[in-house]
């Protein structure tokens, strides 16, 4: 398996731990990069801050994005990704606790590719992660990697 990176943007360490456990239970052994907040996610993706120098030619296969994040919120992150040529086609799955109508509308309207609500029941959560991995990592053909022109295109 080549480097199909999963970027998990999640501030709650419990959720990180449970997500990792679910991935492992489903034998998904891709590299998982965890960003503790929105800012870090953006740093990683655009190779800034603590991630400066990272090769932006390599982009995650999928971004699992929580909405309620410290510093920069999930929706803001999404907005920034979609506003940047390098990340505007990047598959983003919103993985969050809420199923508030407003969150769904906001998420999709900013270009989320999918919206999954984390079930409280861990067994159900594991099942959700399994299907998520199967779909986005195996079935789904990712968009071609964009040239890092740095030019921002309005979406």
């Amino acid at each position: 398996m080549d480097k199909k990176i999963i970027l998990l943007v999640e501030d709650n360490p419990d959720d990180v731990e449970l997500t990792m456990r679910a991935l492992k239970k489903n034998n998904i052994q891709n590299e998982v990069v965890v960003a503790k907040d929105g800012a870090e996610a953006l740093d990683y993706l655009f190779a800034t801050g603590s991630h400066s120098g990272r090769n932006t030619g390599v982009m995650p296969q999928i971004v699992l994005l929580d909405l309620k994040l410290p510093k920069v919120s999930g929706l803001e992150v999404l907005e920034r990704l979609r506003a940047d040529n390098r990340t505007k086609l990047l598959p983003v799955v919103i993985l969050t606790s809420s199923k508030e109508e407003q969150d769904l509308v906001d998420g999709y309207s900013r270009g989320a590719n999918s919206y999954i609500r984390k079930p409280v029941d861990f067994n159900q959560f594991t099942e959700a992660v399994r299907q998520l991995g199967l779909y986005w990592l195996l079935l789904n053909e990712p968009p071609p990697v964009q040239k890092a022109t740095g030019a921002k295109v309005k979406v």
Partner: protein
Amino acid sequence: MVGWVLDLPVLKSVFPGLVAMKANTAIGFILGGVSLWLLGSEKAGKRTRHIGQLAALSVASMGLVTLGEYLFGWDAGIDQLLFREAAGSVGTSHPGRMAVLTALNFVLLGLALLSLDFKTRRGYRPADFFTIPVTLTGFTCLTGYAYGAKPLYGIGFFTTIAVHTAATFVVLCVGLLCARPERGIIALLTGDTVGGAVARRLLPATFGIVFLLGWLRLEGQRAGLYDTALGTSLYAVLMVVIFGALTLATARMLNRMDALRRRAEETLRESEERFRSVTETAHDAIVMADQKGAIVLWNKGAQTIFGYSANEVLGQPLTLLMPERYHDGHRKGLQRFLQTGEARVIGKTVELHGKRKDGGEFPLELSLTSWKTGNEIFFSGIIRDISERKGAEEVLRESEERYRLLFDENPLPVWVFDLETLSFLAVNEAAVRHYGFSREEFLKMTIKDIRPAEDIPALLEQVSKLKNGAHPPGEWRHRKKDGTIINVEIVSHLLNFGGKPAELVLANDITERKRAEEERDKFFTLSLDMLCIAGFDGHFKRLNPIWEKTLGYTVEELCAKPFMEFVHPEDREKTVAESKKLAGGGDTIAFENRYHCKDGSYRWFMWSATASVESGLIYAAARDITERKRVEREIEKLNEALRQHAAQLEAANKELEAFSYSVSHDLRAPLRSIDGFSQAVMEDCREKLDEQGKDYLGRVRAACQRMAQLIDDMLNLSRVSRGEMRMETVDLSGMAREIVSELQRQAPERKVTFVIADKLLSKGDPRLLRIAMENLLGNAWKYTSKRATARVEFGADQQPDGKTAFFIRDDGAGFDMAYAGKLFGAFQRLHGPAEFAGTGVGLATVQRIVHRHGGRVWAEGAVEQGATFYFTL
């Protein structure tokens, strides 16, 4: 006859030795006399006439039979029928048989009597022809007896005519001729003609003188006074002298008559000439008509006036000259006049209308007379065309009419009364109409009669002033015919009316105006609004009583000072401005200011006002709006409070939303950790955990699920309360079917019969109604889950208030009605989770949704008897 009956020779033959009148002859005379007597009068009845004619016929028959006896020598047996005469009587050929001439005379006499009223076409009267020979025969016989010449009264050996027979014949004949004096010979003798005069003069002479002279000459010769030659000569000379003289006298008489006649003719001609010239030169039409109404005379004037020539109208009926409408009257009048002599138009001059040849009508004046000529009645009329005169009359009439109209058609009652007697001398139509008295009644009344009794002294005083020449207009009370008292304004003027001092009066009924004024005054007094009249000088002039009640000042106090002093000092400036606007002709609408009360407080007034610039007056109405002002302030305060409250509510809502959001995200995360790690412990430390430990962890996880469910339900509940409603028509029946099929899909093994009414539609928010329906149907599904078979019904009922109530009915677990009030409370449950799962939020959600739609939700049920949930929208 008497002679024969008594056998007296004197009566039979007059003189002895002379032949006797035969009995049959006497009968013949009697019959003839009777016949003449009966037929004598022309107006005799039919019966009388018939008897007379029968007698005449008998006379003729008797003569005819006797003649037959002589001619044919037979004896009919009538000669001796009544009396026997001795054979060989004097001058008698056959005993009892009358003479031949007598018989012949009787035949003629009978025929004459029969034909008494008969007249041939040429005007001859056969009666005369029959009578004359008889007369002559009689006369001849008498002459024979007188002169002693037998051959004159006897023919051959036949029976001779008795002397009195002859005389009777003459008498009868004269009687016969005189029976119809207006006709025949007698008419000739008695007529007023020249012939009549001559005949009357000559005939007696002819009969008398010739007979007398002849008789004298014969007797003289018989006495031996002269011989035949001398006698005849004397006779001739005397005849010549007498007849010569008679002829001359007759000629003179004729000449005299001729002269008279000529003079009469001259006079007549002159009269006719005058008449003709008059008729022909007259401008008037002179028309004469006969009694049938046919025109017989038509002069030039008539031609000019009517346009017809004489040829066109002569013989035509008079109706030709009249308009159609007079025809009937004319015919009836003519008939009436001819029958009864009653004349309506004759002898008078009347004005009528005539019709010209061209059909045009024109007014005419007709003088009609009638006269009688013989049996004919004639009418003559003098007709004058009075079109022009009418025209002039019309002008005069119109002029009079105009002046009359000024008086009569004056819309105000007008009259003239005599200043001395106070009698009405003239009244106009308006007065008649207004007061109810007829003109005739008025003219019999005095002006006192239209006053109420108590006003009469004042009236008399006023009249005395009028005589002095004062005519001030005034207000009076008058009494109509029906007793109604009216107020009038009188204007009068002195005039000379037919030589008498009189007063011309115009009366204007102001009753209504007075009443209106009184009414206005009443309203002014009663008004709850403050009414006032103020001068431009800044003072009140008139105030209604409510002012005193409102401000506490008396009207006198209010009028004493300029009104501005009562106005609140802060409002004075704008009040002055408003007053100026009014004085400039503007109107005031809804102007507000404050007025000072005697107790020191102020009251708010709202004004409507208008001004009469000419009279310098302001008319204003004010309403006390103090209370309204206070209420307005109160409302303003309440509104302010409400605004604050709303703002707070909005803030609270925002907070609630943030809270919900936070709950949605943050409250679930720990649950996930608890559940997730409990599961991890179960998996990773399976060997280290005993059964009890595993059970506890299971409980932890179950609690997590419940908690997560509670949070979700809570959020749902809060969500139905928030958010906009999108109202549209919702097909509840269709919605129910979708929900039901979803439920059945989840548990296909269950045997539940769903009965869903068709076409239940309602206005509402489809998303919210779906949540409500899901909850209700879900409940029905859930609470029937312990039944082997179940029945769930969705339908609608009409409520007493006319609203439609939808219901969902199941035959499941039901509930105790004692707890019905708790059903809709959030997190309230009637069953334990072991019995039926649930958080107790569903019905609370339903209630919120129904309430948000302005509806009502309630439930009916019994334990183990099913439940019915009703809702209206």
